[in-house]
């Protein structure tokens, strides 16, 4: 990556470059050089950000896929729970039937 190389080369001679800038143009020249360096670094990280952004829409799809599977899992859990609930309910119905038989004296 050319940008990375340029930043690296600047950094390797950073003190010398800034010293030279200071001698030639004082604080203003130093600030200008540092500003250029900041621009280079911003560009470097902007490229990284854009690489990540390329996948951003896929993450949205991933979130939808994960949420859809969670819903399917919830349905499966409900089905399993309902097995026990139906049997329990049957027991309640039979209990009720027994009480009715007792009340009616059949």
């Amino acid at each position: 990556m050319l940008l990375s190389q340029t930043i690296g080369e600047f950094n390797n001679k950073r003190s010398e470059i800034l010293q030279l800038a200071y001698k030639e143009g004082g604080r203003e020249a130093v600030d200008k050089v540092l500003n250029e360096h900041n621009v280079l670094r911003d560009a470097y990280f902007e490229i990284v950000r854009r690489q990540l952004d390329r996948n951003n829409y896929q993450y949205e799809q991933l979130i939808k896929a994960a949420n859809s599977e969670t819903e399917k899992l919830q349905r499966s859990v409900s089905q399993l729970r309902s097995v026990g609930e139906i049997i329990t309910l049957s027991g309640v119905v039979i209990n009720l039937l027994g009480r009715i038989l007792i009340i009616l004296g059949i």
Partner: protein
Amino acid sequence: MDLFLAQSVFYLRNNIYIFIKQNRDSKVIRFCVGKLHSLMHPKIDMKNIFKLFVILLLTSCASIKSIELGEKAAKAGAEVSQKALDIYSLLSQQVYIDKSQQDKVKVLTDPNPSEMALPDTKVQDFSGQFASRAEAYRSLMNTYTTFTLLTDSKYGDKTREAVISLQQSYNSIEKLPDLPSAVSSKLPEVAKMITQAMQVKKIKVHNEILFRLTSLYITLWEEDRKAWDRYIDGIYDHYLTGLNSVDPKKYNVKKISSSSKEPYNEDSILILLYRLEKRDEIVRQKNDIKRQLDNFGKALRELNQIHIEMSRSKTDISGVINRLKTVDQLLKLE
């Protein structure tokens, strides 16, 4: 149904039996109730019934094992999701470390620090990139939390308890004849077994979906990985090279000498050794972060393989156990 096809036989009453056949996944594939002489081979003896009960017990054990493994896979999935969130938190902190390091380099490399203003390097903003990724892994975490509910080993026991309660209700009605003791004793277990078989089937189906889902997560993680490497390199390499260019005259050799264990007198050697130490420290920090990313990627791939293995009709149980151990070890590594 032929007796030798049936794996479980239960006596009801008046020569009436319940026949159950399961496949290898403990799924009940045939179930019928009928009279012995019209449905079965005439030679039924206690030896055959005993064999059938042994088969029933073994298939029931396989169901329990599948449910247990499912529970462990769900736990591993939740832990991997949490690790992803930790990784993104670690990565997001790096921008503040970068700011602090760049500020320090600015002070150390300034030609005349006495007149410089306090440096204030811009913090690189990656919040949008982290937000979408963290959200994706929070969704995955929710999926595994729900998967944990599906792999709860108590469903079979709850069905068994419900059937016992149902039988008690039935038997308590005086006008109705009590269920035969053979039925009363076996029916709850059969009901439990059927529920477990249903549960195992659902766990397998969801493992297949989770395999596909985690495959997508792996693809995106691997695509992102190159960018994360550049991000980390940018932060640590820019600091390292900037620090290397600090003028040797700015070092206080006495301080270096007092904290150094190296047996050298020459100032330039002490300064160079100090620089080497600092360089190695920065490289170590960078590599530690990259190693954490590597280990997370490996854990995610192992989890993915656990799901595909568990979705198969014939699961390699020892293989799944080994992969679960690997996930656990990878997540514990710093």
